[in-house]
């Protein structure tokens, strides 16, 4: 296993943990952390991709993309945290109520 493969295997693991958390954890804070884990896994894929050919200088473009991705995920997480606090203030809970089918 070379370095890139170890990175990719780790990335896959992190992504799966993130996705698992996203779908199983009802608490909004945990959901946001899970989303960040999923995102970090994807960023790690980009990092691994940068060193496709062993020995050569890493490709800088994936690093630029990861930086862009990090900026976006920080902003999205900030928005998510504000919304989660609003949900708590307005509904008193830290979980999303199940989607209600409006009664006819």
């Amino acid at each position, binding site marked *: 296993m070379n370095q890139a493969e170890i990175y990719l295997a780790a990335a896959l693991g992190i992504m799966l943990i993130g996705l698992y958390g996203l779908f199983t954890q009802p608490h*909004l804070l945990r*959901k946001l952390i899970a*989303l960040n884990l999923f*995102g970090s896994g994807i960023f790690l894929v980009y990092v691994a991709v940068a060193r496709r050919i062993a020995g050569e200088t890493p490709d800088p473009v*994936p690093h630029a993309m990861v930086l862009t991705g990090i900026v*976006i995920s920080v902003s999205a997480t900030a*928005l998510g945290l504000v919304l989660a606090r609003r*949900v708590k203030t307005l509904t008193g809970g830290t979980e999303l109520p199940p*989607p209600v089918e409006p009664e*006819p």
Partner: protein
Amino acid sequence: MSGLLDIPWAAWCLLLPLFAAVASLLTGPRLASRLAPLFALATVLATAGVVVRVLQSGPFRHAVGGWGAPLGIDFHVDGFSALMLAMTAVVAAVITVYARAYFSNDHGSGSGAYFWPLWFFLWGGLHALFLTADIFNFYVTLEVVSLSAVALVALSGTPTGVVASMRYLLTALTGSLFYLLGVGLLYAQYGVLDMDLLRGVVEVNPATWAAYVCILLGLLIKTALFPLHVWLPPAHSSAPAPVSAALSALVIKGSFYILLRFHFDLLPHEMLVASSVLLGALGMTAVIWGSLQALRQPRLKLIVAYSTVAQIGYLFLLFPLCFALAEPGDLWPTKAWAGGIYHALSHAFAKASLFLAAGAVLQAAGGDTLVHLRGLGERRPVIATALALASISIMGLPPSGGFVGKWLLLVAALHAGQWWWVVGILLGGLLAAAYSFRFLRELFRPAPENLVLHEEPRMLGYTALALALFTLLLGLAALIPFNLLSQGAPFPPNAFLEAL
């Protein structure tokens, strides 16, 4: 004239809304609301410049900052992107006029205070999305659009609205991340991100398949195709009316646009045959399921939101008609492609009109349950006419834009010998008529004697009516959009002309 064509209109039609967003943030809501129509008008003019350029000299590329691919991020504008830009600019400009009136009672304290910067970021994000030629930049623009859309949904401030907005955020982020993963897998193999460069090197192999599955999943979540639509009705129905209109009319078209770019301009044909049948089947299910849900909803905005779930389904019928069973030289793929896009276009106008009218009903009658609609035809004829005309396009009756789109899809399905889509298209039309008549019937009942209405700004009704009239115009003057669409279409020009 050549001087006018030399101005980089494409850059302006992105810069103006972004500038407007920052300016609105700095000046505060009062001044922002005054300046908004000016910015909207300037953006429409810049977009018109792009459209004229494409009509006169065909598709073009613009190297942003003079860099050029593969290092820089290019704009690529052909007929399809110009049509989507024009749709966004016109609908968004009308919504801008509406929003000024809608938030006019709100003196900078409530949701109106934050509307303008978010609104122009949304608008600029959409323009950037339709302009870009770079698959990573699609991700960035998708996120600019999603984050502003999520914040705009939360502006309603109600528990339902904030919960819907939270759910929308989680779903939208998951969708974008899947898309980002797919882009990473493509870059790992080919080392380029520009669509034109990627098209030349992309091959069918397991890694490309993995990338395709991730990208497809991400974009389907964002486009809210059945069964990934659950987030859409609460978000679209609980947002303030101008926001609902923009979400249903424009935002979902953004991810649909990227989906079409990947299918028609990037990936090899043989990868898409099987998935296109799946997309068509899901689309058909969405048409039936969304319509049945719309039949059960107690409130106008929920009916209209579920109608969006159904109308999104139609868009996906173009995939099986274009990729399954078609031989080179067949004309129906051209028809199906143009029909699907035309449906997206006319749905934007009709759905925006319905949501704007619903907002006017909310302000006039104080609610939007079916009972609140009773007698509005008599007392608020402008709003009622807007609802009726826009519904004609949603049902797909002539002479509306909705008719042209559905007719082309129908004819394509008949030529292709895939009659089962025909059944679905017709059944969907009948169901759309059924759910539309649920509110139209109430509108044209005699007004109850004790009916008390609030004075809502008249502009709310007029703007909704303007968009509804536009859907009729799209039915009567269909050749202009088609002429634009044929510029740089993924079909030979003669096939395009013969098909129409």
